[in-house]
């Protein structure tokens, strides 16, 4: 029984990792006031370019680097359109999703059916062999640890550094930040690029570690779950990990329930992440105070300097 529990938690952590990457990036972007709905497209872009890079060079690190760069570039398309040309953020984000999906499918045509060396789980000599905690703490693949580290770094950055505070200020009141003299547009560009890079990394995790394959549309909606996750976490990094494990784990739980013979309908369990998000949205929108305390006030509004 403990063996099954440990194994399930391990699998849930790997399922959560792409969500942690994408949600962390999107959280930073949204905290700066930019609503980038193109997460799915950026994840797929990262996945295909990461996979292509590894197929061509054989080096996982180059693959990850390629994914980060291409994810950031994809988000820059969104950035230019919404931050410099002031287009509607929601529509542009959706367009980026569709664009990313199509572009990745086109680029990936040559790579369907190819396979690569998977990035393997680590194995530390004594630590991993400890009973119970050994594998749970020390037996994941490196990117799981990277995702948690990045999440922690983002939390620390937003809460305890000056530039983190400035980024939050830009998201909560862009006119005031501009009046004080901070470069609002530049900060938002940086945040969007970070969001794109992380989404790309999340996508690369899928195609390099999760299944060493490329298949069209392989993110299968995880980008949307990451967006829901940011809301579920009330734009706070501390709740992202919990939400990611829950949301990512729902699929694993549902499969486990099936394999164990329990009769819960699969569709019901797939609905749960979205129901949870709606519940959270309702709760945090209960009164205007709560809304103000949670969502970045300028989320989704284009910034036009008033002087």
């Amino acid at each position, binding site marked *: 029984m403990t063996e099954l529990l440990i*194994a399930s938690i391990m699998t849930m952590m790997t399922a959560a990792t792409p969500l942690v990457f994408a949600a962390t990036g999107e959280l930073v972007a949204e905290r700066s006031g930019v609503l980038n709905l193109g997460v799915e497209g950026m994840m797929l872009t990262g996945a295909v370019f990461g996979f292509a890079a590894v197929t061509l060079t054989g080096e996982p690190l180059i693959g990850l680097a390629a994914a980060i760069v291409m994810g950031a570039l994809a988000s820059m398309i969104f950035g230019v359109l919404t931050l410099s040309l002031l287009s509607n953020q929601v529509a542009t984000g959706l367009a980026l999703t569709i664009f990313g999906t199509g572009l990745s499918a086109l680029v990936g045509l040559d790579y*369907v059916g190819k396979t690569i060396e*998977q990035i393997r789980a680590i194995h530390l000599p004594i630590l991993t062999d400890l009973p119970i905690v050994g594998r749970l703490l020390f037996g994941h693949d490196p990117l799981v640890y990277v995702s948690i580290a990045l999440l922690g770094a983002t939390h620390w950055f937003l809460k305890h550094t000056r530039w983190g505070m400035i980024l939050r200020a830009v998201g909560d009141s862009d006119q005031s930040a501009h009046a004080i003299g901070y470069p609002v547009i530049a900060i938002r560009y940086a945040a969007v690029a970070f969001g794109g890079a992380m989404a790309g990394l999340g996508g690369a995790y899928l195609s390099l570690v999760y*299944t*060493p394959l490329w298949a069209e549309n*392989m993110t299968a909606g995880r980008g949307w779950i990451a967006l829901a996750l940011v809301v579920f976490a009330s734009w706070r990094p501390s709740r992202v990990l919990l939400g990611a494990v829950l949301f990512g784990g729902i699929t*694993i739980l549902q499969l486990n329930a*099936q*394999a164990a013979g329990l009769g819960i309908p699969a569709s019901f369990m797939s609905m749960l992440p979205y129901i949870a998000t709606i519940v959270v949205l309702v709760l945090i929108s209960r009164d205007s105070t709560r809304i103000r305390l949670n969502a970045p006030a300028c989320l989704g509004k284009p910034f036009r300097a008033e002087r």
Partner: protein
Amino acid sequence: MIKLTAIALASALALTTGTASADKLKVGFIYLGPPGDHGWTYAHDQGRLALEKELGDQVQTTYVENVPEGPDSERAIAKLAETGHELIFTTSFGYMEPTLKVAKRFPNVKFEHATGYQRSDNVSTYVARFYEGRYVQGVIAGKVSKSNTVGYIASFPIPEVVRGINAFLLGAHSVNPDIKLKVVWVYTWFDPPKEADAAKVLMDQGADIITQHTDSTAALQAAAERGVHAFGQASDMIHFAPKTQLTANVNNWGPYYVARAKAVLDGTWSSSDTWDGMAEGMVVMAPFTNMTADVAELAAKTAESIRTGALHPFAGPISNQAGEVVVPAGAVADDGMLAGMNFYVEGVDDKLPQ
């Protein structure tokens, strides 16, 4: 995805209409996934290539990949029919209604629908007796498994999939009555991360052999990562799991495609229902690997007996989960029961979704 099929369709049509080949028979193929899935669609594409090789001077083939089942497929099929294709193969169960609809609009075009059960004057159906291969897989699993638990990744609860599960279990029980089958329904034919998830979950729950009724190599690879044996599906996937694939159910569509194209060329084509198996060479087992010699020998003997008809996977006595005898001793399940199979045989550890 719509974009891609549109691009693919446009370029395919450009290619076909560009060449001056009014005498060549145009044959179209609608694929559910990409030929690169190295599974279901790959096998169909191999069949298409065999057709081109055999009748290349008389036949010209086109294919459209990644066509989702449902209303969009009607558009794709109709496009092929509109552009001079006289024989169209639609290679997935979910294309059934769209194929029939388009067939009504184009009575001079001949359609071949794979794994379906509805026909009309210009629609034939064809399917392979995959369950024969599943029986052999079950025999191997019964001998190779140490934990006596086999993980089965199933796609949709249609008779074809249920047949496969039943045949597998019957084969396994014929050599090892203690084998248990854990079934997980993923409700997709092709979704590599989900298939990998399903494989991981089954292994977490103690399965030491994985088999699948989905189209990609992801589950096989997830199993290989943990050193767990698995079976390839629809094509030989040994390249993806050289140390752990036991064998694969290989679908050999080439000879059927050649025969049907010839029938159209001769003018002898008529709507038919073809259900061929090992005997006719439509189902072939990939080489038996990663097992001991005696198991390989047993597997080969079983396959041979099925091929010659000496052994029928669904030979009685067979009881269903409720304990009722559905096939009495001495008889075999007839094609009607097989085609509409919607019950589990005794011993499957799962409730069949309705």
